[in-house]
């Protein structure tokens, strides 16, 4: 069966070897793009729209998991989402999550027999795939959210056996504006929007920028109080006025006391259901 694929792997030797092994096991699979870091993988996949992507979990920039989330969120509606295979040397948290999810993975060093099995599964899934549906598969949403929470708890307890360092809840943000440091109480924040290396902090009256990865900020926020609705957006649940679902299934949020409209990605649309 002919298909197109993308390999995202930061270690050049391993990327070349995976490509060579795939060429032997599945000659009709054409590797249309390779990427050495996460952002390049997202860009490459969106540009070349492959059927299959092999994602290394630990990559510089975005992790394989974040690449999968970005693809699920930004994938154009008229093309089916690529099948995802995670590649890892040793990420126990991820392996545990994979066991419970309908997501395939291969371990490094790659065993050809194991990779052959993956290829057969991929071929079967591609053959069965209904080319007309663009609905995000439910099991992928479940798998990604399981992986996300597993990764968060693994980050909280970095060395196995060491006591898990629980991040204290953040109460005040310190945002610099020129030479001035503004003290912004978390209680006043309506939403956070990540952009590049910064996070935009939006209160009812004004906006600030802080330099911090969103995933680090998330660990210090109360998940009951702040909901992630997009990989780049975290919103105070109390501040949401309405959630409007349009014909394509996309959900938009309006806020109380702020004109901004926030987009809910497909990964998080299930949060908004009538009781």
């Amino acid at each position, binding site marked *: 069966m002919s298909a197109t694929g993308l390999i995202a792997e930061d*270690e050049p*030797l391993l990327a070349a*070897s995976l490509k060579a092994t795939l060429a032997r096991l599945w000659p009709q699979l054409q590797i249309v793009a390779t990427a050495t*870091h996460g952002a390049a993988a997202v860009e490459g996949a969106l540009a070349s729209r492959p059927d299959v992507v092999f994602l290394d979990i630990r990559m*510089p*920039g975005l992790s394989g998991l974040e690449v999968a989330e970005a693809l699920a969120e930004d994938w154009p509606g008229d093309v089916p989402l690529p099948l995802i295979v995670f590649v890892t040397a040793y990420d126990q948290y991820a392996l545990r999550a994979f066991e419970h999810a309908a997501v395939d993975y291969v371990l490094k060093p790659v065993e050809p027999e194991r990779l052959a099995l993956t290829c057969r599964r991929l071929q079967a899934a591609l053959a069965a795939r209904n080319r007309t549906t663009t609905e995000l598969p439910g099991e992928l949403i479940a798998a990604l959210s399981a992986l996300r929470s597993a990764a968060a708890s693994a980050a909280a307890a970095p*060395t196995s056996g060491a006591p898990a360092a629980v991040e204290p809840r953040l109460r005040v943000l310190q945002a610099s504006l020129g030479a001035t440091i503004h003290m912004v109480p978390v209680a006043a924040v309506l939403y956070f929007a990540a952009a590049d290396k910064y996070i935009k902090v939006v209160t009812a009256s004004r906006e600030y920028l802080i330099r911090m990865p969103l995933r680090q900020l998330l660990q210090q926020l109360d998940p009951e109080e702040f909901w992630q609705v997009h990989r780049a957006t975290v919103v105070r649940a109390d501040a949401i006025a309405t959630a409007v679902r349009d014909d394509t299934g996309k959900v938009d949020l309006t806020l109380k006391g702020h004109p901004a409209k926030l987009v809910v990605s497909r990964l998080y649309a299930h949060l908004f259901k009538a009781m």
Partner: protein
Amino acid sequence: MVSSVGSRATSAAGRRTGYLARALRSVGFGILIGLCIAVLRPQRVWTTLIYSVCIALVCWFFIDMGRNLVAGWVNPRNERPGWPGWRWMIAVVIVGSSLGFLGGTQLGDLLTGERTPILTGNEDLRHVFADLLFVVLPATIITYFFNARSVIADREAAAQAAQRQAAESRLRLLEAQLEPHMFFNTLANLHVLIGVDPPRAQAMLDQLIAFLRATLSGSRATEHPLRAEFSRIRDYLSLMQVRMEDRLRAHFDLPDALADVLVPPLLLQPLVENSIKHGLEPSVQGGRIEIEARQEGTTLILRVRDTGVGLGQGVENGTSFGLQQVRERLATLYGSCASLSLNAAADADGGTLAVIRMPIPAPLK
């Protein structure tokens, strides 16, 4: 598990079986004592046995319950729960066995249908004391026996716990040194090289062997020359260079005058690993790592600097274990004379700078 008196972590179920076992053992002792009496006074062996067992059982009841009550009352936060200490315990044994003697005799009367004179007050007091001595003395010895067993069990449990803790911390140290993610990725690279570039695979394997040897023996040796320390780090970084290629550039600066200074083995290793794991690996364009040694008077200064993503930007903030380990080793060896600091690098290249300051040991001459 018989002797659960006072052992620290006994469950409710464990405590129940402990009581039952002690009760059964007391019955055993009762039979034994009864047989001894029967040897001395061979009439009415069965009656003697019944009384003996009854007295032993009731003695056990009063002493064991009394022990628990008094222990909870005199010292509820005792190191050994359920053990009030010998001074209180002697009182418990005397009172408990006296009550046991009376209660057991009553029970024996009930079972045999006889009427023992002491309960009617017609018995000669000397006889009563003699009988009582026959009860109190064995009760004391048996209590001593139960307590000794429990003390031994406690000690064994404590020793086992200590052993387990030591083994766990050794394992954690080893796991931190042989970081599994690094290890399996290195093996994956080796796996590829064996196929495409055998001489390079051999060179990589040599470096891996040197790294493993140093890591495994590092916990045994107490010190080695700075030259050796640098060479171990060179091995490690060569392994990483196979994986990261031109994303990793390493720079070493070890003045000849300092090459023979003795340092704790693999002291710098956690710092270098942190630089890779939290600085350069997460960085898309990579960067360089600089390891240098300097001397300021009698102070040795070791610097590990990277131009990676910087503090607090890494994939995970798991640096604490490695840093804590370095700090602990420095504190153990040099007390307050040594220090480790970790800061953002001050110049435009960014990244992180770790600095160790420690006294230069007197040269071995």
